[in-house]
């Protein structure tokens, strides 16, 4: 009986301890604070601005580093505005003699273009030990050895920190870092083709690095021809020819400043062994600084106390004022003190924690789609009743991405050049473009979260057009005010004209068999591939799926050993050049090792591409873009698939959220109504205690009969023993 009494006492104590919000995953000390809670799925590999290039990383880097330019938070189409720069620089075009040319000068005359960037004075870096100085102004931690690092395991272990003013030299230093042989910046190859002297600079650095493999490379010792300092706050970048897209690059962390002191600080012996690197502990001037870096579990961004004065925008798009996005006009940024990102590798815990109010925002995984969203008969998206009752808001936007099924134009059947003939192959591609019903795919496999693509350009980019003007006339007809996919009969007609009536060779009667190379996957992929086989089957074409792993797939693409493949592209920046280059002949995978995996080459398209990429967004450019789209629609080197839609949910207490697929430095604009969050969390997370009581009672009901049975058995054994 004593055991039973103890058990009940324990149970009562446990119940008493169960106040409210027992499921709160955060420390009690954080309750009621202005903290933004979110999650990340993939651990960031790089936080060094020279290396970081993925979305998972830019969640953090974009809040810490400040490139000279940024995108306006509210305006659409995406508009570049000044970040740390005083203004968006206007390029100066120079001819072969170095004489200035007018902006409208033909590209053939432009030998180089110069971007002069002037940054705002008085901007300070976040507190960091690399800037710490002694009384004489000498750096405190510039000559450390292994002994001095004893007891130092994290950046916070350095007792003294300092700061200094941002200068033009820091931007120059970072541009030089793009060529650093030990950093492997993903954009070095591309930038080396544009920034004057960067390629040679990389070779010089590589040589210096080989001579002193473990020593710090002081980049200030090596001049870079195309990047020069004008004064303390101004620097110039000279590019080969005309490259207007460079301005977009100036809005990416690749061109954010890195102070020489930090580079030197992290290069000291023993630092890398303790993960004390710029890749792990970034240094920036942005609104936030990384104060906790545990990419296995939790990353914490805290407000940078030295952040420059930047205010919330006062103008936006139509409807922004009505939706409350201008309420914080003029308020100093950032509006949130801290952001806590917790790693969630699985979607179920992520989703449930969002519903419990422990994450402020969430995407919608396919598992939880039906719970979150209702699709009306007309295709309108509405939040489910449960979500609405919780005050959750839904934000949707079409992403600046395009997914497509590409044909390898070097293939004799689908490319035609060295096989069936270009005209036959083109009609075959057009027939397939009609037969594969992208709308059905989006509806079945994406819960309607996408729109069918008419060309490579996604919405929001210059040259994307809605309505009749924007449809792909090869695949769609404009009927009753909307684009209607052409019938399978028309596709069959095209197929017959291509010399494959009913999916068989008109001459030999052999069936047409096409091969799709793709990466293998689980059941989801199986059903998608089955669907695709049926789509090809509409034209009596046999589709053979050659599923392989990602590496083999990439290798096949590099070698041109594919016939049809499936890929996608996310915009680096909102310019049509960033999509059209994927089909430019100069980017041919086989010929030039470029990004044109289809190895498509069309002389007119290539000529227009060269012309278009150097132009501003003028009516003339629009005309060229239209022509280029028309060429692609006619030649059909891709079956234009879809532009995915992103669906984001946000709780009622999270304000100032506007979908943004290009800029990532959006945390500073957001605001949290802390009181509302506390209230809602309390309301939603009252613990249910009856299962504990039930469990206790259940255990008693199990134990008591067992004890009785045990005693009876003991007695019966004794009795039977005594009877014998």
């Amino acid at each position, binding site marked *: 009986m004593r055991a039973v009494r103890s058990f009940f006492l324990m149970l009562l104590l446990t119940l008493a301890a169960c106040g409210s919000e027992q499921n709160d995953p955060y420390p009690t000390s954080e309750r009621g604070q202005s903290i933004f809670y979110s999650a990340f799925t993939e651990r960031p590999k790089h936080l060094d601005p020279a290396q970081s290039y993925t979305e998972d990383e830019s969640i953090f880097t974009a809040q810490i580093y400040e490139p000279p330019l940024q995108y306006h938070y509210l305006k659409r189409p995406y508009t570049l505005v000044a970040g740390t720069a005083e203004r968006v620089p206007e390029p100066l075009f120079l001819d072969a003699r170095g004489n200035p040319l007018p902006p409208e000068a033909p590209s053939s005359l432009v030998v180089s273009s110069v971007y002069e960037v002037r940054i705002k004075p008085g901007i300070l870096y976040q507190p960091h030990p690399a800037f710490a100085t002694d009384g004489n102004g000498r750096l405190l931690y510039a000559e450390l050895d292994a002994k001095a690092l004893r007891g130092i395991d994290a950046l916070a272990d350095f007792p003294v920190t300092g700061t200094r003013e941002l200068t033009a030299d820091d931007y120059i230093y970072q541009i030089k870092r793009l060529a650093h042989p030990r950093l492997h910046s993903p954009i070095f*190859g591309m930038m080396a083709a544009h920034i004057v002297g960067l390629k040679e600079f990389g070779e010089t650095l590589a040589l210096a690095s080989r001579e002193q493999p473990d020593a710090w490379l002081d980049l200030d010792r090596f001049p870079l021809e195309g990047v020069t300092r004008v004064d303390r706050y101004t620097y110039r970048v000279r590019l080969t020819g005309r490259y207007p897209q460079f301005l977009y690059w100036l809005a990416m962390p690749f061109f954010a400043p890195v102070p020489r002191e930090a580079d030197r600080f992290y290069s000291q012996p023993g630092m890398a062994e303790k993960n004390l*690197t710029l890749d792990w502990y970034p240094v920036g001037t942005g609104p936030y600084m990384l104060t906790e870096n545990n990419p296995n579990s939790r990353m914490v961004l805290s407000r940078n106390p030295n952040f420059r004065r930047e205010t919330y925008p006062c103008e936006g798009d139509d409807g922004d004022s009505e939706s409350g996005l201008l309420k914080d006009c003029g308020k100093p940024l950032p509006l949130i003190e801290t952001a806590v990102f917790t790693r969630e590798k699985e979607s179920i815990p992520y989703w*449930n924690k969002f519903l419990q109010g422990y994450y402020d925002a969430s995407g919608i995984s396919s598992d939880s789609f039906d719970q979150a969203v209702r699709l009306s008969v007309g295709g309108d998206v509405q939040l489910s009743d449960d979500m609405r009752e919780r005050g959750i808001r839904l934000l949707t936007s079409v992403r600046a991405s395009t997914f497509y099924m590409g044909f390898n134009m070097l293939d004799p059947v689908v490319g035609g050049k060295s096989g069936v003939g270009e005209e036959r192959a083109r009609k075959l591609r057009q027939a397939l473009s009609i037969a594969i019903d992208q709308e059905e795919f989006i509806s079945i496999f994406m819960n309607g979260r996408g729109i069918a693509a008419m060309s490579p350009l996604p919405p929001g980019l210059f040259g994307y057009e809605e309505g009749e003007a924007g449809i792909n006339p090869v695949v769609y007809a404009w009927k009753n005010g909307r684009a209607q996919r052409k019938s399978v009969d028309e596709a069959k007609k095209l197929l017959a004209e291509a010399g494959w009536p009913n999916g068989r060779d008109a001459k030999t009667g052999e069936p047409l068999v096409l091969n799709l190379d793709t990466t293998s996957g689980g059941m989801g992929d199986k059903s998608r591939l089955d669907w695709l086989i049926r789509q090809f089957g509409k034209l009596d074409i046999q589709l053979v799926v050659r599923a392989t792993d990602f590496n083999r797939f990439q290798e096949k693409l590099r070698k041109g050993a594919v016939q049809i493949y499936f890929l996608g592209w996310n915009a680096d920046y909102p310019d049509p050049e960033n999509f059209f280059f994927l089909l430019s002949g100069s980017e041919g995978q086989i010929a030039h090792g470029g990004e044109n995996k289809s190895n498509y080459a069309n002389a007119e398209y290539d000529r227009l591409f060269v012309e278009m990429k150097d132009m501003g967004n003028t009516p003339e450019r629009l005309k060229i873009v239209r022509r280029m789209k028309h060429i692609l629609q006619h030649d059909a080197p891709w079956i234009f698939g879809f532009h995915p839609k992103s669906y984001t949910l946000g709780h009622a207490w999270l304000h100032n959220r506007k979908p943004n697929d290009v800029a990532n430095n959006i945390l500073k604009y957001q605001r949290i109504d802390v009181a509302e969050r506390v209230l809602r969390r309390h309301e939603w997370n009252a613990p249910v205690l009856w299962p504990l009581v039930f469990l206790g009672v259940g255990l008693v009901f199990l134990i008591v009969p*067992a004890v009785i049975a045990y005693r009876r058995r*003991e007695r019966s054994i004794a009795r039977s023993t005594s009877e014998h």
Partner: protein
Amino acid sequence: MFAYLLRRLLYAIPILLGVNLITFALFFVVNTPDDMARMQLGVKRVTPEAIEKWKTERGYDKPLFLNPAVSGVGVVTDTIFFAKSARMFVGDFGRAEDGRDITREIGLRMGPSLAIALPTFILGLFVTVSFALLLAFFRATYLDFWGVVLCVAMMSISGLFYIIGGQYLVSKLWRLVPISGYAVGLDAWKFLILPVVIGVISGVGASTRWYRTIFLEEIGKDYVRTARAKGLSEPTVLFRHVLRNAMIPILTGVVVVIPLLFMGSLLTESFFGIPGLGSYTIDAIQAQDFAVVRAMVFIGSGLYIAGLILTDISYTFVDPRIRFDR
């Protein structure tokens, strides 16, 4: 005993070499150094020069096993296999492909892994042995029958079901503990309680059946009959005599896994957001990080060998007839 241990440790060297060789061969059958470079550098805008540079800097530009371009021992030593393997035998695991120190990372992640694995192991052992003894005590009764049925049912259910079901019931519906996450120190208990309970429950079925079989086999032996004949109570017979004599098969299965507790659990850590070594291994496989995969397989093999040696040693404690000395 010392000579025995030394001999076993010496045996471990060729085993570890073999494991390392097989890991190396298998990894490079499906991944080329080019693939690894692309995985690290990304697929966007990566030039062939950048890939070559990456390979050269990390030593992946050499041949895999034999280098015919050099002479002497260089044929063997100037290869990827030698360069990447030799240092592991002195405990230097080097850096992950993203530049982070592997030994340090393992040190950081070992704690969270053990925080789940150790209580799950101890509690699980206690629960399953007790339950198995209970079933053995009530052998050939309805209690035993339904107990076995319950065990079969429990072992037939996937571990994933327990995790998702447990999270749904305890964290989502009843809101008793956080659904996932981790904290250091005393705050960790609320994150650990659910994965530990689920870990114990999911293991009860199979282990109980196994232990029950062992106990039932022992119960039929003469010494048990003698003990009963001496008038000892059934619990005394079970705990003092049957359990002790059934220890050899129990230890064979139990001690060997003790060192492997450091390696963590792949599924549990992923679903509960525990930053342990299990999720580290999974992440490395997904990222094609050969340095981490190799280090984890090497450590896993070493710990398994350590477990086997510990098992042998443990026999001497439970069975006085077993001695290492001749």
